[in-house]
């Protein structure tokens, strides 16, 4: 399910370029018409978001929803601005980013080499695959109490569980990417005298890279999800803490400001990873 959603996200991200006027059109229309079409495209693509924001704005102001619980969007933006100006927002964002990126990069630096190693030994891969499937499909959050029990409630346990949640998609995709390299490709390269580590470096790793990146992108989404969960449950700083403490103190606009920031970071992070993924999948 996640995969399909991710894929459509990729498509959505890639279409604007495809829709911009193609240079090969024989009779190129006047600049005005081109611009008009571009504006129409952009308008259509942002319409759903704008409608959503409009409902958010007008539902409380027109009295369709309780203003105390649903702050109008404009006030959320004001609260966000105040948090940004006071420096408080940046503090929470930086703490959260350090946590999630630490876990994310630990997971990649463990998951990719380990996955390649496991893929190299076919028997080991077959042996470990069922176990990996279990870990991949067990919600990492369910293990949060275990991590807290063992590592306490400070940074270590937060980064550890983020790394834990991120490592499975990376590991799983690295193994399947490395194992599903076209056998003919390997055979033909072997006939050129390429073998052993060179075969890995020159053929298997680059061939597996797009699949590995799919795992990395899933890990990116997981890192934000787990980060916020751990910060909601127990933290003294960070975006999750900002959200939960604002709610606790009944600073509802600030709570929404925190949520909006989380959404923006999530979308931005995903867009960056999608961009990198497209770069490594060049020509395939």
């Amino acid at each position, binding site marked *: 399910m996640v995969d399909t959603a991710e894929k459509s996200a990729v498509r959505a991200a890639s279409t604007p370029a495809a829709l911009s006027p193609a240079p090969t059109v024989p009779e190129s229309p006047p600049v005005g018409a081109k611009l008009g079409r571009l504006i129409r495209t952009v308008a259509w693509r942002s319409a759903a978001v704008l409608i959503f924001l409009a409902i958010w704005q007008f539902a409380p102001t027109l009295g369709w929803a309780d203003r105390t619980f649903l702050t109008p969007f404009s006030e959320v933006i004001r609260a966000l601005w105040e948090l940004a100006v006071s420096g408080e927002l940046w503090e929470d964002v930086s703490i959260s980013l350090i946590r999630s990126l630490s876990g994310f990069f630990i997971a990649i630096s463990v998951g990719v080499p380990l996955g390649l190693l496991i893929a190299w030994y076919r028997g080991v891969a077959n042996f470990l695959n069922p176990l990996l499937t279990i870990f991949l499909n067990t919600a990492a959050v369910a293990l949060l109490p275990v991590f807290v029990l063992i590592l306490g409630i400070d940074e270590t346990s937060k980064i550890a569980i983020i790394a834990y949640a991120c490592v499975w998609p990376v590991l799983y995709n690295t193994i399947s990417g490395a194992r599903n390299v076209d056998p003919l*490709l390997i055979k033909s*390269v072997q006939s050129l*005298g390429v073998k052993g580590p060179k075969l890995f470096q020159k053929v298997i790793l680059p061939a597996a890279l797009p699949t590995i990146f799919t795992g990395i992108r899933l890990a990116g989404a997981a890192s934000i999800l787990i980060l916020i969960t751990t910060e909601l449950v127990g933290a003294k700083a960070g975006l999750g803490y900002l959200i939960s403490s604002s709610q606790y103190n009944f600073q509802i606009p600030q709570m929404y400001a925190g949520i909006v920031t989380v959404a923006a970071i999530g979308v931005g992070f995903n867009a960056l990873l999608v961009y990198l993924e497209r770069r490594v999948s060049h020509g395939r």
Partner: protein
Amino acid sequence: MSTAKISVDRVSKTFKSGAGQTVLAVDDVSFEVADREFVTLVGPSGCGKSTLLELIGGLTAPTTGRLTLDGIPITGPGLDRGIVFQQYALLPWRTAAANVELGLEVAGLPKRERVERARAVLSLVGLDQFRDRYPHELSGGMRQRVAIARSLAYEPKVLLMDEPYAALDAQTRELLQGELLTIWERTKATVVFITHGIEEAIYLGQRVIVMTSRPGRIKATIPIELDDRRGSGDIRSTAKFTSYRHELWELLHHEVRKEVAPVG
């Protein structure tokens, strides 16, 4: 005997199929290929031709029998034999030139020499203009030319080709067949060329080896005597060519029927 470049001596190969049964793919095959000879192997699909080529290429080992190259037993793949596959098998993330350079890179050639050689073989196959293109930017015929250039890059003495033109359209195929004969003359390589096309086998081969349907055995060996294959005329419609075609058709027809007809 002493002039044989490649010698296949009573070679058999069995496989374990998915269902756990053993399948005899190549059954007691013996033949020799002389130095600088162009031999085509023709047979119905699934007759073990490709297996035979992989055996010569050293990508698999025979179950029984012996294969030698210049009298030395074949134990694995080597740079003295270049293999060209039907599906091109180019690395999609490398340009044409970088694909050609791959083997040279691993062999440890200095960069300048690599570039030089890649340039030379790419121009030999008529792709000087397309060195920096990626495989997905090239047509099927061009990709196959890159694959041929890649296997020619370290000047192998033997070129093994596994239905390299089967996926191409008829015009491109004839064009590449002509080019291959030129390359063969220029490089003075020994060529073993596998095909299921009768005309291709006659046009290219100095000798056509006909194989039976599975298990693959040698049914007949037919020397081809055609003068000036690459002349301007349509050699494929000469009386001689037609009679070879008919002879091979008769030999193969029976085999294909055996393969297709229901057992019992």
